[in-house]
């Protein structure tokens, strides 16, 4: 077992889709929280094999998408400083700020580097003691342990030239904000499997109870996702609302305790502005004061940044599950992955970018979009 191909098996997926069809008796709206899950759904056409009663809406779980424009402009201002080596995950490079993106800055002479891991940025700081190495620490809880480890290691190794620009976001406050928003349509959630490998799922139990919504912690492969939908539909049809764990091969109820301890050591909870959504109280991490010498926001003063988002873009409604990419007049026209207008088009995991990448903008124009069939699941085996 390699824990990958087995979960892309077409027969297993068909069986689960048939079971969902047998179980459902009325319409339900289910949100997958994670951008990675959105990508799987669109790539494998999972929504196309579900019965018409089940609508999947796409959640806010793409950290690249929801990083506030102000923070991107701040990153660009820091990256433009002489003597700075600015390190980032590759997906942030093409996200446009108010004046271009990091790749353009690089072409103008800024030292911008893609790293695979935040720990690679620490290694870079050790190798370049005369330079300031800044890592753009974005992500959900999944990315918090590696980012925290980088800061913790830099402090222990006395690498004073290493700092992080932190824009961490948290899933449970976002789910709560969606459930509290006027016009909410979401009746059940496929919970974020990888976030829960770190945090466990205990903090989702009171949300399921308070709002009466089933939450099924779900993996990222087609078979995982169809099983997650089946379990969610079973709960909805039975009038139940509990937390279930479909992704038990990687998620324990209390997560990874060592990771949680390190997060607690390095980060503290703060209010955070989400692109397309706005400020959500207590929805992010920032560095604790004990780590302030590694906090790029304090080291590099950046004057007040003023930003303006597109007035056409409906990404805020897409992120809350209120609308779909097709509902936007700009989708696939003035807004494409090359010229994104808002949050959900800036990264391949954003709902609009995923729809565009798999040809669904063609369907919105009335043309025949390439339609994936379930039989293609596992075609790569």
């Amino acid at each position, binding site marked *: 077992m*390699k824990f990958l191909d087995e979960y892309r098996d077409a027969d297993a997926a068909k069986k689960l889709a048939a079971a969902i069809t047998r179980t459902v008796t009325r319409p339900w709206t289910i949100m997958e929280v994670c951008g*990675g899950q959105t990508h799987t759904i669109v790539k494998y056409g999972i929504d196309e094999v579900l*019965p018409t009663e089940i609508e999947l809406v796409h959640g806010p779980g793409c950290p690249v998408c929801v990083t506030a424009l102000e923070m991107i402009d701040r990153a660009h201002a820091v990256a433009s400083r002489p003597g700075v080596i600015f390190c980032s995950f590759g997906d942030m490079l093409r996200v446009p700020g108010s004046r271009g993106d990091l790749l353009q800055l690089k072409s103008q002479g800024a030292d911008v580097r893609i790293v695979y891991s935040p*720990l*690679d940025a620490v290694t870079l700081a050790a190798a370049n003691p005369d330079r300031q190495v800044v890592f753009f620490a974005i992500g959900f809880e999944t990315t918090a342990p590696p980012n925290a480890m980088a800061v913790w290691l830099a402090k*222990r190794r006395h690498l004073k030239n290493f700092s992080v620009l932190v824009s961490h976001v948290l899933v449970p406050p976002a789910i709560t904000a969606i459930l509290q928003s006027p016009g909410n349509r979401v009746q059940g959630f496929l919970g974020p499997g*990888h*976030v829960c490998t770190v945090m466990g799922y205990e903090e989702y139990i009171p949300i399921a109870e308070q709002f009466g919504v089933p939450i099924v912690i779900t993996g990222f492969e087609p078979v995982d996702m169809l099983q997650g939908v089946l379990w969610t539909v079973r709960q909805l049809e039975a009038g139940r609302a509990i937390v279930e764990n479909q992704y038990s*091969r990687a998620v324990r109820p209390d997560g990874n305790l060592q990771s949680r301890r390190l997060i607690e050591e390095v980060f503290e909870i703060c209010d955070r502005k989400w692109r397309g959504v706005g400020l959500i109280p207590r929805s992010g991490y920032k560095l604790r004061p004990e780590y302030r010498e590694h906090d790029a926001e304090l080291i590099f003063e950046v004057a007040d940044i003023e930003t303006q988002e597109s007035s056409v873009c409906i990404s805020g409604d897409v992120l809350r599950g209120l609308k779909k990419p097709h509902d936007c007049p700009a989708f696939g026209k003035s807004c494409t992955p090359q010229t994104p207008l808002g949050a959900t088009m800036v990264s391949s995991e954003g709902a609009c970018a995923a729809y565009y990448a798999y040809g669904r903008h063609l369907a919105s124009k009335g043309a025949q979009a390439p339609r994936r069939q379930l039989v293609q699941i596992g075609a790569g085996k």
Partner: protein
Amino acid sequence: MCLGIPGKVTKTFREHDVLMGKVDFSGVVKQVCLEHVPEVKIGEYVLVHVGFALSHIDEKEAQIVFDFLKSMNQLDELETPSPRDGPS
């Protein structure tokens, strides 16, 4: 972004007093921090995100999805298919 890829641990070592390892992702080998999965043994699988192992994959639990599918097969034999189950 929250990508987690399963890979097989092929070697473990310490660097700057942190547990590290080599992890094989179907032929591509990368250096990975194993500090938060200290119990993992060579040959076992971990779930890796940005060069950091988040979780030790539990083989018994991994089987549960397929046990569930098997139990569905047995149910299928007992259940009369609903009229909605047309050819797919």
